[in-house]
């Protein structure tokens, strides 16, 4: 392989950010090739189907999940709906509290200083470590799962909302004041639009956290949901069903994060060039 890097031999440069990576067909080919190899290795007996269920077996397992369901009668659509429902509830709950609270904390410096150590600590508390506590408090039912997701999403969203308001260019606010804009108008027409891109980025990361947490939350006290499906299948030695569950949840996560990225570009066209702030 020739070390091409960004500076190719003919002196042509890849302009930063535009054409990332190489030609697209290579990626498709590598994926297709891998799936094919996987299937062939399985047919040749090199990969044991229990350890690495081949694509053909996964397709059959998906068909079974769609028609009959697993465990008995719970079809894949139910698992999907239950998981997405839990994520949506926890996520919306987190956003609903984090956005107003974050704006308030970001706008009032004293509040920011008062809460900084608490927020830093609460963020480092691993969401899933709350699992035993919420079970003791609220039982192993729906509420516990929704609250866990909400907790994980909340702190990520809160820190991003605070930062989005706190780090607005003060010049923007001063300019608006010079133009004798009233307090509320400054907020609605200057602060909010300037803060929205970062908030949106936070919302995207928070949703990713929700998808992480749900699998752990569904490990206990339920047989519905994709996380439960993945774990349940193992106890019946159905690795093919586990893998189907993994693929489905991965696809959902992927589709939603791409969808949000597109949505952001449509809703907030002024947010381009923020990539560097977004870490």
């Amino acid at each position, binding site marked *: *392989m*020739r*070390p*091409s*890097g*960004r*500076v190719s031999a003919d002196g042509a*440069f890849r*302009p*930063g*950010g535009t054409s990332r*990576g*190489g*030609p697209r067909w*290579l*990626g*498709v080919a*590598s*994926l297709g090739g*891998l799936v094919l190899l996987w299937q062939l290795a399985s047919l040749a007996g090199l990969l044991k189907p229990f*350890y690495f269920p081949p694509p053909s077996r996964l397709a059959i397992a998906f068909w079974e999940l769609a028609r009959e369901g697993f465990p008995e009668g719970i079809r894949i659509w139910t698992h999907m709906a239950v998981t997405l429902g839990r994520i949506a509830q926890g996520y919306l709950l987190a956003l609903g509290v984090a956005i107003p609270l974050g704006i308030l904390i970001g706008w009032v410096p*004293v509040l920011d200083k*008062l*809460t*900084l*150590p*608490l927020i830093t*600590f*609460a963020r*480092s*508390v*691993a*969401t*899933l*470590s709350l*699992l*035993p*506590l919420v*079970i*003791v*408090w609220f039982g192993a039912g729906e509420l516990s799962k929704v609250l866990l997701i909400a907790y994980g999403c909340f702190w990520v969203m809160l820190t991003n909302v605070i930062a989005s308001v706190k780090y607005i260019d003060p010049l923007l606010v001063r300019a608006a004041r010079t133009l004798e804009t009233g307090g509320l108008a400054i907020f609605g027409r200057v602060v909010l639009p300037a803060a929205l891109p970062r908030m949106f980025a936070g919302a995207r990361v928070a949703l990713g956290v929700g*998808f*992480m947490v*749900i*699998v*752990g939350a569904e*490990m206990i006290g339920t047989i519905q949901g994709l*996380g439960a499906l*993945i*774990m349940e*299948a*193992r106890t019946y030695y159905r690795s093919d069903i*586990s*893998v189907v*569950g*993994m*693929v489905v949840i*991965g696809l*959902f*996560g992927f589709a939603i994060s791409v969808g949000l990225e597109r949505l952001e570009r449509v809703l907030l066209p002024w947010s381009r060039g923020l990539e560097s702030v977004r870490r």
Partner: protein
Amino acid sequence: MRLGDAALGAAGTLGVLLVWEAAARSGAVNPTLFPPPSTAIPEALRRIGPDELWQHVSASLLRIVWGFCLGAGPGILVGVASGWYRTLGALVRPLVELVRPIPPLAWIPMAIIWFGLGEPSKVFVIFLAAFFPVFTNTYKGMVGIDALLLRAAQTMGLSGPRLLLTVAIPAALPDIATGLRVGWGLSFGILVAAELIAAEQGMGFLIMHARLLGDVSVIIFGILLIGATNLATDACLAGVIRRWLGRWHAT
């Protein structure tokens, strides 16, 4: 000025602790379900002696360090290689992008099938949590290097591996550092769930076991312990990174 900030922060934290304490003492919340910190921590320490505590902490840290090193090392290597060799990047990235959205915890059943119920399956799940953020950030750093920088280095006669080692990788270091810290945080995030796999030691085991005994003091203490360990080790990592980055990025 900064001292004042710290004082305000301490005041805020103290305020919350006091409210919690007062709520439990006044009976507004049930103190057996929601013990105040002043009773929960001594109670927990009484039940788990310092030796046992250290066993749990070290067992967890060992798992995390193993998983993290196994994930971060290849993450950096593969990230640098796919950012530098374009063809390799085009081959590897779609695979990674496809596997990345699968939450690390969803791998637990396969981890058990592949590695059994022992340490390797737990380390594998943590490895997954560390690998992807490190890879993604490293790749992003490599692709985002200022072309002018590389061109200048080329003009001065650098090329091939020397260009990569002396210019490109140092330029990508801040992104690599970000990836490392995100990966470390994620490793902690999934520790508890990883330790649900037939563990007999570890901080995650400690709190899940306390749930079976209905011992809320130990649960609360364990949660705070995991958070504090995460915070402390992350601060260490940040310190090391700052010193290491300082050689190239003087800010």
